[in-house]
Structure formats: C-alpha cells, structure tokens
C-alpha cells in the first residue's frame, strides 16, 4: 500500500474546533499556574513535566547563527508532525536568517511571526493548556527565550491511507473513490463534488479522552433546520470517553436504540453521501472512520444503491425491485417454509409432499429446530468468512459447503429442502448489505413465530414488524416514508427508480425546505 504524507494545508479549520466545556477540565494535570514564564529553560521544564513518561515528545533547542540571544525550542510529537515542513519552514529560517532582537519580548514574537516564518498558519498563545493540546494534535509549539508567549505553528501531518476504492458497495458503473480515515480528505472529497458556498461544515470535538474531530456537513437552503438543531442537540448530549469509529456516534444518536433497524445511514462513498445531502440530508464525518453518517435515514435507503441512478432507469428499477423482493424473501422464506411444511401440508402439491416426506425419512431433528440450527450455522459461516484473510476464507467456504451441503444430508442430519431454504435465504441476505444486522434477527424471530402458529404466527410476526416500522421515526421523518404513500412524487424513488427527467422534486419532508430539484422537464 502506498503511504503518503498528508500536507498541512487547510488545517487551520481545525483551530476553530471548539472544545466543549467541561472537557478541558481534565487536561489541567499540570501543577503550575497554566502560564508561561520568560525563561526558556523553565518553560521547557514545565512542558517536560506535562509530558513526563512520554518519549515520543521531541524538544529541540537551537539558536540563530547571527544572534546568540535568540534561543528557541520547538516541541513536537514524533509521527504526528510533518517533520520536513518544520525543518524547512521553521528551523531553517530561524537559524539562518539575519534579524535583530527587538527591545521587548513581545515584539520578538511578532517579529518572528510576521517576518521570519514562511508558514501560513501561525498563532500566538499564552495558555499552556492550549499549547499542550496543540502538541497532541501534531502542531508545533515554538518557545522563544525571554518571551512568555509561544507560537503555535500548524504542522499536522501523519501518514494515512490514500484514496482508494472501498471494499463495501462495489460498483460497476460509477465513481470508485472512497472515504479514508482522514477527516481532511473526506471533507475535500465532499467539497470537490459540491462547489458551492452553501456547502457548510461545522466542526465539533467528541470524546473526553480521544478528542475526535467530527464535522457536520450540509447544504444550506436544502437541509432542514429542525433536523440540524436536533442533530446538534443529540451530538452535544454525547458524553463518552472515546470515539474510534463513526459507529459509536451512529449508535449514540439513534432514534430507536433498541430497534434492529438502523435509523442512521452510513456510507463509504462520497457520491452516495453527496446524493443524500442533495436530497436534504445532513452528513456527519468522524475523524478516523471512512464511514460517513447521514441522517435522517429511512427504510427505502436500504434498497437504494448508487448504481441504480447511474444505469438506465429500467434496469435500475428492475434491480430495485429485485432488492425489495429479496429483502422480503430473505426474512420470509424460512418461516413460510416451516409454516407450510409443519402446519399446512394441504398447500403442498402431492408430488412435492412425497419428496419432502422422503427427504425427512430418518432425520431425527424436527424441521423447526433443524431450520434454526442451519440458519445459525449459516450466520457463523458468514461471520467467519468476513473476518478471515481471503485464503483462509476460501477454506471456510469449502468446509461450509461440503459439510453442510452434502455430508449433512447424506448423514440424515438435516433434510435437503432445509438446506435449499437456508441457501436461498442466505444468498438473498447479501442483496442489501446494509440490512444484514436487522435481517438476521428478524429471520430468527419469524422462524420462531411460525414454528408455533404456522402461517398465522408468521403473519402476526410480520404485522408486529410492520407496526414497529411504521411507528419509528428518524429525526422526525417517518421511517417508512415513500413506501406507504404512493402519491405524486413520493413513489418515484422507492419501489422503482424513475427516470431522472421526471424526478423534479426532492423527497417530501426530508427536502421540505426546497422541494424543487429541477425547475422544468425540458431536458427530457
């Protein structure tokens, strides 16, 4: 993998990241007053005590070659900083340039900031906390002898992954770039697509220990204020020590934490996120996670895939329909099979009944139990396959297919129709990867329901699921929006994908602020 060093341009935006009140409190671990002194050596000691037992912190002392009086020290953390940049733009001018030490110490800082350092992002600071934090972020603190003011020079630059095609949601047609772990890159990926001053980025910081930067992105004039304020409220409410992935945030701002259905969307692809922002959604970028969250997230989005919009609309609609049908099939097929085979045998044609009866000969487990066990084994295989390296993953597959497919039937452990049902249900699961979590649970629930009241049990289960789906909301938007009411423009982008020239309006409620997507249909 190519590793590039990220340039420190545009990093000034992070200075604006407001730290939350109360979160800086635990940073007051130093036993001093929190102010610098005029002595360089004492200042260095203050910093050394703050960073005690941390050997990655570098204190580099040097002086100007023309004037002995100008002594400096830079404090950086190895690995977080763009060393080359500091060497060339900070140490070199300070060492080699001729400049006079002004009378007062404050002026020296100004002199250095204004005349010496060819760096775009430098600021002065007197607060120790701020400096320590800056060092932690990868910025450089420049201490000057005789000054109680230090300079913070932006120098963040750590090694990160280049933009590459994401593993999830592969496309045949469509952009192949994906988000990375770096929030800067992610922001630039979005900005590159929407070249418009209405695109807004709001920065925040979450995590008492990790200080993870997160960024709320939306298009002003399209996104609803109510959703924005609700989102900000929920984000402000978060009180957690660390955020390692956007999954943390996702779970913490969910509407229905107990529901198996996700009410916050996530994607690894800029085109998907931008398309959702254009419909009025708000995106949340979390530093360190290539998955960008979007809210509100409704059920239809689980069957909407970016490629639908890039292909011919008929093909897109057909794929959409297949996805919707398989979503229903994957949770229903095992339960319906179980219901019919164990309760409603009269519905099976005689020939089929005979062959099912034959396949059950000698199988000790009841159908319901064997179906549950097979579904569990399938889920185990799926889980094992995803975590394994590719080579071992194949071995898992072979074992799975051989052991479960052939041997289990030959050994009369399960009947062959159960294997077929499991396989169909399993394959259709992968039609909508974002739904796997909910599908796995619902499938089991429906199997259990069907195992004790047949098709009626299954229907009761389905009605309960529907009731749940209809009663939940995501940031005030009904979760089933677009699927129940098929009026005018609502149905254009749900069960089918209408041609682009006819989709003149944004989805209702989400895009309520500015409904017009196209003013006319003349481009038809």
């Amino acid at each position: 993998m190519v590793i590039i060093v990220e340039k420190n341009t545009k990093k000034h935006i992070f200075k604006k990241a407001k730290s939350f009140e109360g979160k800086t409190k635990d940073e007051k671990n130093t036993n001093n007053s929190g102010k610098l002194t005029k002595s360089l050596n004492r200042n260095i000691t203050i910093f050394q005590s703050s960073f005690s037992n941390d050997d990655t912190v570098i204190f580099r002392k040097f002086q100007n070659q023309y004037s002995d009086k100008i002594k400096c020290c830079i404090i950086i953390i190895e690995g977080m900083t763009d060393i080359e940049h500091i060497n060339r733009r900070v140490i070199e001018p300070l060492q080699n340039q001729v400049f006079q030490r002004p009378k007062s110490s404050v002026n020296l800082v100004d002199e250095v900031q204004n005349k010496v350092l060819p760096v775009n992002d430098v600021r002065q600071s007197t607060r120790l906390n701020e400096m320590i934090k800056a060092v932690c972020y990868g910025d450089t603190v420049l201490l000057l002898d005789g000054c109680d003011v230090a300079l913070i020079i932006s120098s963040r630059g750590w090694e990160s992954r280049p933009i590459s095609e994401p593993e999830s949601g592969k496309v045949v047609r469509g952009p192949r770039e994906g988000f990375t772990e770096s929030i800067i890159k992610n922001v630039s990926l979005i900005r590159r697509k929407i070249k418009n001053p209405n695109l807004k980025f709001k920065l925040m910081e979450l995590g008492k220990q990790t200080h993870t930067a997160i960024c709320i992105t939306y298009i002003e004039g399209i996104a609803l204020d109510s959703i924005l304020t609700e989102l900000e409220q929920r984000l402000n409410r978060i009180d957690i020590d660390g955020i390692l992935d956007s999954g943390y945030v996702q779970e913490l701002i969910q509407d229905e934490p107990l529901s198996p259905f996700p009410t916050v969307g996530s994607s690894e692809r800029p085109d998907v996120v931008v398309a959702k922002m254009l419909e009025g959604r708000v995106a949340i970028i979390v530093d360190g996670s290539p998955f960008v969250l979007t809210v509100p997230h409704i059920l239809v989005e689980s069957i909407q895939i970016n490629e639908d919009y890039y292909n011919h609309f008929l093909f897109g609609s057909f794929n959409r329909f297949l996805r919707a049908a398989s979503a229903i099939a994957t949770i229903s097929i095992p339960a319906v099979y179980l219901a019919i085979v164990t309760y409603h045998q009269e519905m099976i044609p005689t020939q089929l009944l005979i062959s099912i009866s034959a396949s059950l000969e000698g199988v000790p487990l009841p159908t319901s139990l064997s179906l549950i066990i097979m579904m569990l084994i399938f889920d185990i295989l799926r889980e094992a396959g995803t975590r394994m390296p590719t080579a071992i993953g194949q071995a898992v597959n072979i074992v799975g297919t051989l052991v479960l497919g052939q041997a289990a039937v030959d050994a009369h452990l399960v009947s062959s129709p159960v294997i077929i049902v499991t396989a169909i249900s399993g394959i259709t699961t992968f039609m909508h990867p974002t739904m796997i979590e909910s599908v796995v649970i619902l499938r089991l629930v429906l199997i259990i329901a069907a195992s004790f009241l047949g098709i009626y049990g299954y229907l009761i289960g389905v009605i309960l699921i529907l009731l749940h789906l209809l009663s939940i909301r995501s940031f005030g938007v009904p979760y089933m929006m677009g699927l129940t009411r098929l009026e005018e423009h609502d149905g254009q982008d749900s069960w089918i994908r209408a041609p682009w020239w006819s989709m003149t309006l944004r989805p209702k409620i989400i895009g309520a602020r500015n409904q017009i997507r196209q003013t006319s249909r003349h481009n038809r």
Partner: protein
Amino acid sequence: MMTIKKSITVLLLISMIFTLTSCWNYKEVNQLNIVVGAAIDKGESNNYMLTVELIHVKGNADVNVSSEVMSIEGDTLLDAVRRFNSITGKRAYWAHIRVVIVCEDIASEDLSRVLGFFVEDAETRSDVFIVISRECKAKDILNADLFMENVVAETINRSLKNSKVLSEFQQASTFSVSKELKTNKKSVTIPTISLLPMDDKKATFINGTAIFKDNKLTAFIDGSETKTMLFLKNDIESGVIVTKYNDRNITLEILDNTTRIKTRIDNDVMTVNVLVDTQAAINEVERDIDFSDIDIIKDIEKLSEIQLVESMEGVIDKAKHYGTDIFGFTQKLYENHPKKFRQIENLGEVEFRNINVDISVKVRILNSGEVSKL
C-alpha cells in the same frame, strides 16, 4: 437486582414459549400417512368397512413411491379413520385424497351419509372425485392390478380427468354431488367403476353412470347412454359417433358440440326444447366411400342425426321410467320461470314424466380426415 430479576423473567417466558406451545397442530411431514384413495364398503360386523390406499415413500435421494392398501371397520367413517392410527402408528392425512369409491350397496341405501365426512371435515378437500363400484366391492378396486403406474387412486384420478376424451363417463366430485343432492331438482349421476379382466390381471375400468333418485341409487346406464346423456347436458367436448352407411361402419369424431336448452311453461305444460348442434369429422371408415360427393356427406349427416335423436329419446324414456331427471331440465325450468314453476310445484305436478322434451339435432361434417377418398 432489578435487571437480574427482569432477565430471569424474560428467560422463563421464552422457555415457556418453546415448551408449552408449539405442539398442538405441529406435524412433521414424515409422520403422516398420505391417503390418496378411499373405498367404502358395508362392514361385516360394523356399519362401514373403510379401505384406504396409503402412499408409501422409500428412499432418501431416489424417491421410491409405492402404495399400500388396508381396511378397517367402524360404526361411522370418522370412527374407522381414527382406528387406522392404531394399525400404522402414523396419522392418516386426508388432504391429498384423490378419489373416493363407494360400493353399490351403500349407494343404494343412502349416499349423503357417506358424503358428510368428506364435505364437512376441514382436512379433506371437498372436491374429491367420487365413483361407484359396480359388480364388485369397492375394496377390490383399490386392490386392482397396476398398469404403468404404482398407485391405483392416481390411475383412476387420471382417467377421470381425461373423461372428455371418451365421453362415456363424466366427472363427479363430492362437492358437485352434495350440491345436486341439495337442489332436489336434478338427479345425481356418478360414474361407475368396475374391474376388467386382462389376461390373468384385473384392471380398473370406468364406464357408464349410476343414477340416483333422491339419495338412493336406482339404476345404471352404460357408456353409450352416458354419452347421449352428456349430449343433452351440453357436457360433451369430444368422443365418437358410430353410424352405419350402406352396412358400413362410419366413425364420426366429435369436434365441437353445443346443446341449447330452451324452456317454456304454457298453461301448466312444461316443455323443453333441446337443440343439439354437433360438428364432426369422419375418421374411420371400413370400406371406400367417395367423400368428395356432397350428397353422401349429407346422407351421413342425416343418418347420424336420426341415430342421435333415437338414442336420446331412448335415454330420456329410460330416465322417465325411473323418474329421475338426470339432465337437469327441471332445474332449468325453475331457473327460467321461477314463479310459474312454483305454482305447478304447489299443485304437486312437477314430475319429470310431465315434461315434454322436443329434440332437434344438427350434425355438420366439417372434414373427412386427411384424404377425400378412402
């Protein structure tokens, strides 16, 4: 503490779902004995002797289907049905039954008692084919030898489904029979089945019709009479008519037939006009006849018309003799003239005998097979 208590409660509830429910109507397919055919005879000690044909499935990958026949007696049918459990150990499953065979003796006593079980029980479907065994026990039919099939009931089922090819017997299901029994304006007709000796084997053979008055079997008519009856009921699609022309047998294959029935009630006189319009093709001729001659065709048409009218009159006379309206004329009269019919009915004069039937037949020969001269 609360959470522990709660989780224990939930666990208990879930375990109760599994242990206390999920058993009443849960039945595994391989624990069922699939019944495909049933035969009902008079029992020796009890009322009924029920014989069933059960599907016997062997093998796991290569399914091997065969059938087994067994009999048991009972006071009622359900009584007998339940007794099977104690023989086979598995529950008899009636939802896939194909055919019910009722023996002559039971049919001549009371058919509706037998039908009750099949129509009322939720498990049995109500549109099962029903046949009457003639000159043998119903049980023997299920024990008949098999030709090219391995299930007797399936053989009977197939021949009944293809009844239109021959038109010498009709279809009757438990539902249609009980429906006709209820109207009491139409006599029930059920196909008859008998055993046909073939070398040293015995094959099932469906032919002819059993005629019921009210719910008692009164008479049988044979295959050709059945065909005539089907002509009158507008229930014929194909079949053959054999006529004689100059001492030669000519076979006409029926291509299409429409029978229109017009009813009239004038001054308490009920008249039924039957207009038969048959399209046929000449199919099998014994010796050469020149069919390019239109007059010959005309003659053949005439002859076959006369022949049809004669046979129809014969069947109607027979039906009138037994007092059974197997053609549904009375029902037609009631449907078309409910008020006048009621008046006559109140006078007690609705008898099949009193209905005048006028028949006019039109046979049209459309072609003569593949060649004009034979």
